[in-house]
């Protein structure tokens, strides 16, 4: 009996030495495969939601599925960065062309839909397209790892899967919010700006971006936000540049209010104050704002409302709206302490304006 146990022990020792990595590959691959299945379910659900939204909104007998499938495979080829001189302009041109193309195609499928529904359709398509891309990339590395028996490749993929799933989960949860036209957490900037724009004439200063001019404590306040209640983010970079360089407004300060991703441990709705252009995205707007403000020596102040990625793209939480009062106080303090009567100040509410009018 004792010798039999010794043989089993020696055999298992041999098996683990020779086949240990294969066993680990098998376990890791199984783990990734389960996550990949979850991603596939999310991808399929978002595609179905997009098709249902187009069918329900367009009230057309034509099946938009083929067109939507084409959208999901739509690629944006970023410019070459071997010579980075002028690359921001090229990126901006490419992203603008892509956005215009998507909007024109959505309008073609939904010719009689109101602007809010067109913008919601664009957002849902973007979510479906992102999930499709995430699934494809994860599947690529999973299959490549299995094909080449690369333990390192698979284990790296396994390590980042919880974060990938977290982001994918946030995206799929955002679909319901967008379908209902509810403000998202990222809309806190536009909500703040809209309070200063009530009952004041608005003018369009850039694509999907509106501005009002008002008086505040003896200062002239230029307030801008993306045009709501559509789900747009607008072009605040171009708008601010236009105000300074085309409309020749000698600004004394720029105040930007935006949502910011919180670090783990930080509370949702915490407010942080700082210096610099508070704006996310691919970087083209940020570049323009930094460029024009440094050229004209305009200080840029930032007010950030902390939230998670899930909270930023799903329905606005009470904790985030509760931060509004603090943000208004900070804006008032900044204006009073950093500017004087007669000064011209630009207040930009950055973020998605879905469900936020002006």
């Amino acid at each position, binding site marked *: 009996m004792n010798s039999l146990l010794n043989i089993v022990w020696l055999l298992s020792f041999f098996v683990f030495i020779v086949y240990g990595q294969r066993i680990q590959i098998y376990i890791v691959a199984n783990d990734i495969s389960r996550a990949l299945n979850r991603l596939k379910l999310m991808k399929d659900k978002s595609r179905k939601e997009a098709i249902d939204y187009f069918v329900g909104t367009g009230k057309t007998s034509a099946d938009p599925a083929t067109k939507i499938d084409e959208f999901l495979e739509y690629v944006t080829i970023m410019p070459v960065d071997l010579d980075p001189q002028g690359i921001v302009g090229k990126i901006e041109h490419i992203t603008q062309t892509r956005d215009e193309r998507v909007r024109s195609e959505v309008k073609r499928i939904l010719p009689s839909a109101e602007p809010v529904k067109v913008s919601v359709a664009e957002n849902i398509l973007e979510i479906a397209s992102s999930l499709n891309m995430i699934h494809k990339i994860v599947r690529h590395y999973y299959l490549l790892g299995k094909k080449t028996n690369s333990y390192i490749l698979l284990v790296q993929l396994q390590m980042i899967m919880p974060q990938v799933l977290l982001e994918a989960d946030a995206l799929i949860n955002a679909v319901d919010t967008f379908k209902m036209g509810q403000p998202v957490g990222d809309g806190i900037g536009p909500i703040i700006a809209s309070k200063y724009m009530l009952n004041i004439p608005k003018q369009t200063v850039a694509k999907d971006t509106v501005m009002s001019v008002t008086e505040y404590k003896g200062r002239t306040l230029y307030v801008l936000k993306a045009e709501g209640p559509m789900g747009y983010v607008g072009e605040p970079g171009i708008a601010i540049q236009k105000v300074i360089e085309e409309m020749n407004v000698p600004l004394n300060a720029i105040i930007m209010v935006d949502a910011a991703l919180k670090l783990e441990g930080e509370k949702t709705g915490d407010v942080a104050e700082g210096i610099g252009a508070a704006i996310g995205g691919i970087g083209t707007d940020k570049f323009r704002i930094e460029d024009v403000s440094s050229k004209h020596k305009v200080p840029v102040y930032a007010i950030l409302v902390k939230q998670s990625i899930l909270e930023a793209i799903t329905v606005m939480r*009470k904790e985030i709206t509760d931060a509004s009062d603090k943000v208004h106080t900070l804006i008032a303090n900044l204006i009073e302490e950093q500017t004087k009567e007669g000064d011209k100040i630009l207040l930009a509410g950055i973020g998605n304006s879905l469900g936020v*009018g002006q």
Partner: protein
Amino acid sequence: MSVPSTAQAPPQQQAGKVKLSVYTIEECPACGQKTKRAFQIGDYITKDGAKCSKCGNTAKITLIYAEPVVKSK
């Protein structure tokens, strides 16, 4: 915010592991009376709301937000 609330139950939404109820807050620009009601499709911030129950002026939607669903005992 302590505001009078309408009896209608708001639609529930799932966000991650949390179930949320979405509410619309209407505020009267004249008397400041606030009303909390369930969110309805088509609501947006700055949209005109119902007549104010206190002074009869047209209220405006000032906030839309979600709160976790409170489980009844």
